[in-house]
């Protein structure tokens, strides 16, 4: 080891002046950014069986919600075809059977999907973003800001959830699924804010954060680049669990009559099935209950798997192992690809 013969100051050979011979084009930059922030995490997720399965499941639902709604006909009431079992009729609509008023269960599920997904997305994004921002600012800034923000947070968290929901829904009368999602998570951010704050507190004075501040980094950048990465596992997990809880919370709204009854909701169909299929007595109409139950369960399962797999992306120890394995593979392929400057192409590939 040992350092090389130090060149004199001001010398163009000084390591403090080294620059590349080649200019990076905008294309190069996009390529690198895309590869680092999109391709690399996706690859890590794909490599893990949970990630793969989770990604596929979620993708499946997205496809159902986008293409499915075009392909599958809308559910319609049909007294002749009530309570059909799956595959009883050779009709696409009744592939999974029908409910008590003759609506095909598959069309019901498919056409509810976009609304459900919108609700979950809106709820998860709203609940978590607000929680993260409040927790970050509060934990990092400290002082009076912290005290005020936390007081507000605690007050919001201690409001009884059901009455709050009733009042909000009665006043706003939401129809838009995005709006419904937001209303359902109007309190969820408070718990997360507290959790985020406690995780941020020890980071306030940690050396690498101080180093960043010392080099002149702005507060917002320090928060984004230094503090946030530590919080990502928690945030991802919460994102998925908020999405799940939105499904169930939404059922309540419909049943309390705060929103006009609609069958475009898996939970509502599930509940109808429970009440009207006589399930406690016989399994004859079990399909009515099972179809929405499984629909909900599969998505929940997919989201949970995905959340777990994300840990591989965020956990540096696991990520490092992935990258090391990849590097070893890529190295073999690119052994001949060293360009004149001596800097291996590998340095630019992720």
């Amino acid at each position, binding site marked *: *080891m*040992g*350092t*090389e013969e*130090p*060149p004199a*100051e*001001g010398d163009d050979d*000084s*390591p*403090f*002046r*080294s*620059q*590349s011979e*080649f*200019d*990076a084009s905008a294309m*190069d*930059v996009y390529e*690198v950014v895309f590869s680092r922030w999109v391709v690399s995490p996706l690859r890590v997720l794909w490599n893990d069986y949970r990630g793969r399965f989770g990604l596929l499941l979620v993708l499946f639902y997205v496809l159902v919600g986008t293409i499915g709604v075009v392909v599958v006909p809308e559910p319609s009431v049909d007294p002749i075809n009530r309570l059909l079992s799956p595959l009883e009729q050779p009709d696409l609509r009744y592939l999974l059977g029908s409910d008590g008023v003759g609506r095909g269960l598959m069309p019901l599920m498919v056409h509810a999907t976009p609304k459900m997904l919108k609700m979950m997305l809106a709820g998860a994004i709203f609940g978590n973003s607000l929680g993260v921002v409040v927790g970050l600012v509060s934990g990092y800034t400290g*002082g*009076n800001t912290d*005290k005020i923000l936390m007081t507000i947070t605690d007050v919001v968290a201690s409001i009884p959830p059901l009455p709050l929901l009733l009042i909000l829904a009665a006043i706003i009368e939401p129809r838009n699924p995005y709006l419904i999602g937001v209303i359902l998570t109007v309190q969820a951010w408070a718990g997360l804010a507290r959790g985020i704050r406690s995780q941020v507190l020890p980071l306030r004075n*940690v*050396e*690498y954060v*101080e*180093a*960043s501040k*010392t*080099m*002149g*980094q702005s507060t917002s950048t320090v928060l984004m*680049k*230094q503090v946030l*990465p*530590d919080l*990502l596992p928690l945030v991802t997990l919460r994102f998925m669990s908020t999405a799940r809880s939105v499904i169930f919370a939404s059922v309540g709204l419909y049943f309390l009559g705060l929103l006009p009854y609609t069958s475009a909701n898996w939970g509502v169909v599930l509940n109808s099935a429970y009440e009207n299929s006589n399930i406690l007595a016989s399994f004859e109409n079990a399909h009515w209950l099972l179809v929405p139950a499984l629909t909900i369960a599969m998505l929940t399962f997919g989201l949970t798997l995905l959340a777990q797999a994300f840990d591989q992306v*965020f956990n*540096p*120890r696991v*990520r*490092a192992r992935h*990258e*090391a394995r990849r*590097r070893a593979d890529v190295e073999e392929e690119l052994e001949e690809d060293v360009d004149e400057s001596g*800097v*291996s192409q*590998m*340095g*630019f590939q992720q």
Partner: protein
Amino acid sequence: MSTTDTDEDVIDNDEPVLSMENVSVEYQDESILADVIPESVAERLGMGEDPVHAVDDVSLEIGEEDVVVLIGESGSGKTTLGRTAIGLQDPTSGSVKYRGYDIEDVERGEHAGELYAEDVRRALQIVHQDSDAALNPYRTIRSQLAEPLKLWYPDMDLNDRQERIATMLRTTGVTPAEDYMERYPHELSGGEKQRVAIIRAMLLEPDLILADEVVSALDVSLRIEIMDLLLDLQEMFGTSYLFVSHNLTNARYIADKADGRIAVMYLGRIVEVGSAEEIINDPKHPYTQILKWASLPLDPDEARETITDESPMMSEDAPDPRNPPSGCRFHPTCPKAHEVCTEVDPDLIGGEVREHRAACFREDSTHEYWDSESIHGGDREIPL
């Protein structure tokens, strides 16, 4: 940002790079209740305990390509003084000047047109003791080293940054550079992490780097390597160092090799300052002498002899920075303390700013110290 990638210093004048004049730093320990009520109310109610006098009336100058080592034990204020020097801590009184400009004035914008707060911020950097905590565990080495470049050298593009980082890694012996750039901190050894932390500070080409106990956590053989590396980088770039250390042998190594100075601190004051040779071979202040006595020799026979020596310290209790002793703060422990030492606190005596000085009345042959009675029943010798 107001600077570009040039060789020239932002300001070019005859002033020292950093000068601290009569700097004192005090801070309060907060009581628990103060945590839940607004700060202004807490202050009005007079809550909180006695302030801790971490640094008391210290003046120090650091020049171009200079090396100053602050040595002391815990409670000496050396870390606080170091952090105040580079602007991570505001002094309670006194002034800290960067090239003649008071830093607080610059931050208020009073010297707009000549010097801005960002320039000062960039010129004063830190390398932490704990290399594990100094690097963000969630980011690759490359992304962490790219950060200062992106912030301060916006003209550099992706390739340039890559090249600069790779070169610096190679220069400090972290090779193969391309491999290390993509690694996460946990994949590096302690010495490698410390090198990366050093590079991160160096990339900004600062005028002064605070090296806060940077080798204390490393193995003995690595310490020398890192200290040599810092000195090589100094030759390459010409930055100054302010080292903080609690180990006399490390302090001596780097101060000697760099022709720098050692400043011995005790309870918030500088009690002696001089070159490595002067401090080690001719320590004047009783505290320095005791530190030297306490540094164990390597030779087993010599070491065995000294272990059983009676301690020259008059008191084994560590003094409380909240309640420092009156007069010379060292008097309860000092084997040569006299009456006058309990009343008056000596300043650094013995010459000009860059000469060997000690804050002890014994340096002044005409001082009333010599007429005053010993408070420990007679002066004792400090075996050296």
